[in-house]
């Protein structure tokens, strides 16, 4: 009772601030929460665009889990998603620490710009660039191989190369952005810590291991959590870069939802997968928060 009174007092006191935040709240209710409710509802229906849609209980979920193709796509999503989570957190951190050691500022800025540039491109552009770079006829990589007498390789249709390539290209696109987050965090580390360590005789490696890395942990947690939340929602890269040969290795859940829902009009089935993705993402995110002790 007392807490209700306190809340009412706060609202009365800061009513203008609450009013200003209202559009954002309305936006999230309309475009984030209501669609989840609507999607969950559709997942229990034999959905039709026009006319009555019958409720069919858990049949869509049953069909999803009985389809071998779904589990293949789920496996791909886990492999690609969690490789992205780990690599696009730790490698940019490592790069940021290396860049921080560069003393010649113009060179440092140049490398930073080069690293960041791919992040500015859309996946359509990035996909086009890599399809061009790796093409067997006219591609730069194969042209260089040709100079050494090697036969051209159609990299983009090699099943065994598909996942490493897609993970690598995602890293190439995202590394610069994450690297800047870590560089900003490094800039915020108290320089007296380094000075004290140097006086105590700590070398570069020890300073990095015992000062820089621990100081970057909070940023690392944020980056990891953001990556985890997006892990199962990969879509753009696959939509742009996939081809039928490597599809069994790289097709992911969101692409599967898109095809089943909007190309094959099987909206009940697609909604069931969407709810599944939502639930799994929620569980993984909450577990990660707990494991990482996010608020500590």
């Amino acid at each position, binding site marked *: 009772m007392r807490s209700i009174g306190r809340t009412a007092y706060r609202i009365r006191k800061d009513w*203008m601030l609450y009013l200003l935040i209202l*559009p954002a709240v309305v936006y999230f209710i309309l475009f984030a929460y209501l669609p989840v409710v609507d999607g969950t509802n559709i997942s229990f229906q034999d959905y039709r665009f026009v006319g009555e849609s019958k409720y069919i209980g858990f049949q869509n979920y049953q069909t999803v889990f009985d*389809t071998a193709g779904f589990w*293949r796509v789920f496996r791909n999503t886990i492999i690609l998603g969690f490789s992205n989570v780990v690599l696009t957190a730790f490698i940019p951190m490592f790069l940021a620490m290396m860049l921080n050691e560069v003393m010649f500022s113009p060179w440092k800025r140049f490398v930073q710009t080069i690293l960041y540039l791919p992040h500015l491109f859309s996946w359509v552009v990035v996909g086009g660039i890599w399809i061009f770079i790796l093409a067997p006829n006219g591609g730069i990589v194969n042209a260089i191989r040709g100079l050494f007498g090697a036969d*051209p390789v159609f990299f983009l*249709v090699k099943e065994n190369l598909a996942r490493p390539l897609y993970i690598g290209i995602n890293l190439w696109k995202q590394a610069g952005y994450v690297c800047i987050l870590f560089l900003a965090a490094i800039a915020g580390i108290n320089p007296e810590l380094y000075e004290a360590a140097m006086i105590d005789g700590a070398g570069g490696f020890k300073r990095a291991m015992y000062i820089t890395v621990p100081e970057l942990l909070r940023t690392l947690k944020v980056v990891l959590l953001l990556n985890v939340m997006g892990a199962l929602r990969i879509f753009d890269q696959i939509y742009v870069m996939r081809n039928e*040969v490597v599809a*069994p290795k790289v097709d992911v859940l969101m692409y599967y939802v898109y095809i089943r829902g*909007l190309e094959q009009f099987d909206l009940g089935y697609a909604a069931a997968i969407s709810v599944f993705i939502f639930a799994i993402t929620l569980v993984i995110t909450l577990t990660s928060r707990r494991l990482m002790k996010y608020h500590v």
Partner: protein
Amino acid sequence: MINKVVTRVLTVALLLFLVAGTGLFATGSDESDGEKPTLIWVTSVQGGREPEENPLFEDEVERLTGIRVQLVKPPGSEYTTKLTTMLASGEQVDIAYAGGGTYVSFVEQGLLEPLTDRIAASPVLSDPKIIDPAEWERVRSPDGEIYGVFNKFEQGTLPIVRGDWLDKLGLAEPQTFDDFYDVLYAFTYDDPDGNGIDDTYGMAIGYTLYDTVGLFGAYGLMRGWAYDEGGEFYSPYATDAAIPVYEWLAKIYADGLLEPNFITNNSGAFRELFMTDKSGMNWYWAAWVGLYNQQVHAEDPNNPFEARGIAPPEGPGGRLLKAGGDGFMVVPGLSEYKDEAFQVAEFWHTYDGNVISTLGILGHDYNMVDGKYVLTEIGEAHAMDHGAPQPKSLAWVNPFGELPGFDEAAAIVRDYALPQMATAHDKIWEDITRGEAAKIILGDITAAQGVANMRARFAEEGIGRY
């Protein structure tokens, strides 16, 4: 004090925003004001060739029909998604273009207005001199209704070769698989462009198999799905009968006759290779025989380039090509302006409709000079294509005649082409068939393994008899 003022200004702005959002200041629809309704026409093919030309196209439709339309043209790659989303969300759509599998799915979903009675009552569409009545029967749905009006004569795809290269190398038009191999070999290794550099390929295609239907057709196999004796779906391309075709494709790849980007090429890429002396053959729409010739000679009238449509190879199954899948103008069941929408679809097959769908817009794409049509520079560049370069109307005669080579190519298509059956599972068919075919052609697996994989993957998806 300043903080207080800023907060109040923001609050007033917010309130205005919220009130505006509720539509309290809305002025009402066009119709309630007694104005003509504006029909929303969602399409990927009809209209201006450039986005800025669409308003002119809309005005031209209004001038000729008295009906106001507004074109919505999503990018081709996202067309189905955008249209489906608009229909699913109840957005206004009065006329839509729907092709192949999309049309079938829309009918299955009950999204479309049956047009059977309207077509029967239409003096234009029921006129056998304009549209062959057998064509309407062909597209009648199992429930007896017709849900769409044809967009155009869909022609078909066929092998298109460099006729000038054939002549230069002293080669006859190929008739059998062996002949095709010999021609592709000569195009690759006998320097057909005479530049002294080994920079040509026999054949360039895209999307792995694209429209090489004629190769499979030689064994009596049609692209996509077919029904077996038990009435169940099966894929002719996934039968053992298709193995010799995959083996032939693998051989031309291994021998360097097939341009290696065949999996990731889009149609623009292989067209470019063909028009720039890099490949001697592709499989594409009959209309493109004329367009290739027109485009290359527009750049350089002295270029010896000659695109020529030829018959596909003859095999144990005879000869077979793919006719274009029907594209339809449909009227969604939720449209409030069904009568007006149907009138636009009907207009499309009148003489004026044929003119706008081919030549384009009066005063922009063409002018009338002494009672004769004269294309403007823009009209020349648009190559007489504003949604239906070859109208469905049997009464239509293009005042400029057809582009060079088209008539001969169209005759070959008429002789050998059958339409592919459109189903809601076409996308999965494409994915699985093309994926396994590519592995066979690249030599990663044998043809027998490939077709077995196709069948296993169809079974995994629970489609057809597998």
